[in-house]
């Protein structure tokens, strides 16, 4: 990626924080996705030493893919297609490679985001130009192609996880999930085994925001990653005939529109289809009413770049794409095939009104390229899935957020940047958005931490990433949720935005073992079969023991008020810094919640020393169901701040 290393503080001035050789290049990140485009410069192995001796993986042969395409950077490439083919029949090799080759782009993008090599002069059609690199650019990559057009089947996903564990990956990056949220979930079950073997598993939180309860991948042994923006934008200025102008966002590159105002029409007024016309759905626009005009289309129903294709096919010269209340002021950019820009909800309402009320509406679009230092940043992406946790409300999810909006990373040579079949452009890098993009950022950062602390458990790495995350801007104001324009809460951003330069020195960590997670399952009163499935053994809950979800040593706190007015949570922190005395600072945004911590001071004399504390949440249990309140618990020795978010839901 370009810009994200700088945005995350991983540029030159912090180069000493993480090793560049040795341990760093021994870490292997496994990516479960759509495969890889091995010819990408992001997988160049120039300057890499021998493959780690612990590596057991290999590169498999198939359509347009031979083992020789792997190298000392891309050290593994496998594909899992049996489940897909049993349902859909043989892969159509004229359309999709029956091999690890990525014909989609998604897998190449995620893999290079996590661990791509350094590539100078990377850009998409001139946008976001800079030096691209993965977060852990010295780490090795192994890809496990488990997704085929148009979906990913659980048997293939599980096979990919199974093999990745056997191959000895250190980090698993999984940017996929499912909308139906229940206990039957191959990713969660497979991730448990991975965690048990010390593999850090990060997963995307999902793109179903801004709806609440919309999270995927919420098992507590998974690190669940939401998405925020960078301080970079791709503005495109819309000027209306009435002289007013509004800034949208676009990745269009091509023959610009004339700078003079062009006739402008609302798509719904240029269609006979009352249901889909305003969405610029294929076949709904009347060419006579669109030809030579800029057309305003609504988001929804069909994909954004296709709307541009529909306008173009009908003779339109340009498109203004309107955000709905769902996206709010979200500024996700698209590589449109015609001059087009996406505008926020507020501007959309004004522009739509203009199109409806002006007798001769006109408009123009001027593309302004790439701008950086956009503030405030990050803002929480509207699409980022949100809590409360739909399965276990007493575990706060997502865990944290990372860059996931307008991310540039490597791309397949098989499709153009819009992904449309009609897009004949071929690019080395593409800019796309999603929690799929934020997840591999965290995977790469976890690999960096793993290279510094190879003995740390996945929970310790997650703890370091979470307790050092930030949720305010430098001026002290809280991170904004772009969907609403108001401050984001822990249900949206979890612990906050990842901050690797502080994560490398967290002071204290909240560690967890396999036994802790099994105790958590006992606390949830999972039946013995479920526990045996997940533990892959004969583990049974001890009937004489009292298990409590509140005691899972998680680096965040979620209290689900269910009638009682007092809730006690226990936590144990491990000192990974020097000797020091940590004192606690508690904040609660309302008087309806009182938080007290005992003891309020923790003294550490040596590394790896553990200390426990108890938190008592006293709540007004009479608040109406659906109410939420937030706060934080922070431990500090003056050098480190170890912060945990608190979310109370009634």
């Amino acid at each position, binding site marked *: 990626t370009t810009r994200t290393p700088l945005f995350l503080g991983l540029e030159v001035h912090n180069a000493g924080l993480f090793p560049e050789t040795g341990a760093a290049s021994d870490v292997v990140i496994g990516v479960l*996705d*759509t495969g890889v485009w091995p010819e990408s410069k992001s997988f160049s192995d120039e300057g890499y030493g021998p493959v780690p001796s612990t590596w057991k993986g290999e590169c498999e042969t198939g359509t347009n893919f031979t083992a020789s395409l792997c190298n000392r950077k891309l050290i593994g490439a496998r594909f*899992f297609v*049996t*489940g897909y083919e*049993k*349902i859909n029949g043989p892969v159509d090799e004229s359309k999709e490679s029956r091999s690890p080759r990525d014909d*989609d782009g*998604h897998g190449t993008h995620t893999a290079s985001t996590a661990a791509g090599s350094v590539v100078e002069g990377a850009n998409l059609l001139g946008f976001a130009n800079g030096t691209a690199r993965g977060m852990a650019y010295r780490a090795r990559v192994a890809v496990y192609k488990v*997704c085929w057009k148009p*979906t*990913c*089947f*659980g*048997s293939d*996903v*599980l*096979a990919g*996880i*199974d*093999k990745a*564990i*056997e191959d000895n990956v250190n980090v698993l990056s999984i*940017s*996929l*999930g*499912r*909308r*139906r949220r229940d206990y*039957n*979930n*191959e*990713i969660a*079950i*497979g991730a448990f*085994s*991975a965690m048990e*073997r010390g593999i850090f598993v990060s997963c*995307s*939180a*999902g*793109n179903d925001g801004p709806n609440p309860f919309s999270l*995927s991948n919420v098992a507590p042994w998974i690190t669940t990653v939401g998405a925020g923006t960078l301080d970079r934008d791709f503005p495109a200025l819309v000027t209306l005939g009435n002289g007013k102008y509004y800034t949208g966002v676009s990745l269009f590159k091509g023959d610009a529109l004339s700078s003079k105002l062009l006739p402008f029409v609302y798509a719904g007024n240029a269609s006979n289809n009352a249901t889909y016309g305003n969405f610029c759905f294929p076949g709904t626009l009347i060419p006579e009413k669109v030809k030579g005009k800029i057309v305003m289309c609504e988001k929804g129903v069909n994909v954004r770049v296709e709307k541009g294709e529909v306008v173009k096919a009908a003779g339109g010269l340009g498109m203004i794409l309107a955000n709905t209340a769902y996206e709010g002021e979200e500024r996700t950019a698209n590589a449109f095939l015609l001059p087009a820009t996406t505008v926020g909800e507020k501007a959309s309402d004004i522009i739509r009104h203009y199109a409806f009320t002006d007798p001769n509406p006109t408009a123009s679009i001027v593309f302004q390229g790439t701008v950086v230092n956009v503030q405030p940043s990050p803002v929480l992406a509207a699409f980022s899935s949100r809590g409360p946790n739909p399965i276990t409300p007493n575990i706060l999810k997502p865990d944290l957020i990372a860059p996931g909006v307008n991310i540039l990373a490597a791309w397949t040579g098989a499709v153009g940047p819009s992904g449309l079949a009609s897009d004949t452009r071929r690019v080395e890098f593409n800019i796309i958005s*999603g*929690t*799929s993009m934020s*997840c591999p950022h965290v995977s790469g950062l976890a690999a960096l931490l793993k290279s510094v602390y190879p003995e740390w458990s996945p929970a310790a790495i997650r703890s370091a990433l979470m307790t050092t995350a930030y949720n305010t801007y430098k001026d002290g104001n809280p991170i904004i949720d772009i969907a609403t324009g108001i401050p984001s809460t822990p249900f949206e951003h979890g612990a906050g935005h990842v901050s690797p330069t502080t994560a490398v020195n967290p002071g204290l960590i909240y560690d967890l073992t396999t036994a802790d997670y099994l105790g958590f399952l006992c606390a949830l009163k999972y039946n013995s*079969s*479920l526990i*045996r*499935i997940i533990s*892959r*053994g*004969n583990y049974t809950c001890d009937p004489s023991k009292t298990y409590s979800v509140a005691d899972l040593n998680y680096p965040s706190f979620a209290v689900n008020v269910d009638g009682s007015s007092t809730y006690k949570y226990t936590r144990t922190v491990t000192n990974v810094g020097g000797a020091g005395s940590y004192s606690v600072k508690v904040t609660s945004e309302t008087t309806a919640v009182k938080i007290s911590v005992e003891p309020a001071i923790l003294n550490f004399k040596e590394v790896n020393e553990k200390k426990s504390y108890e938190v008592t949440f006293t709540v007004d249990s009479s608040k109406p169901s659906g109410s939420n309140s937030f706060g934080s618990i922070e431990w500090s020795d003056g050098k480190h701040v170890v912060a945990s978010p608190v979310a109370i839901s009634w």
Partner: protein
Amino acid sequence: DGAQQSTYIVHMAKSQMPSSFDQHSLWYESSLKSASESAEMLYTYNNAIHGFATRLTPEEADSLMVQPGVISVQSEQQYELH
């Protein structure tokens, strides 16, 4: 028949493998054959879970569920890119 079949993930209690088998995969196959003569193994899992994936009718899935050592027979789920 194919239209009725679904893919199932079968979780096995590895520790319950009869001593007459020296490989888990052979035990898994034997268990599967007890429920369905024609069903084939799609994958055998050794690390992520103990078990295998196969295609079965609902009746065959019910039959497999009661075989010794079978912990659960779960329908495969589908996932989407984020």
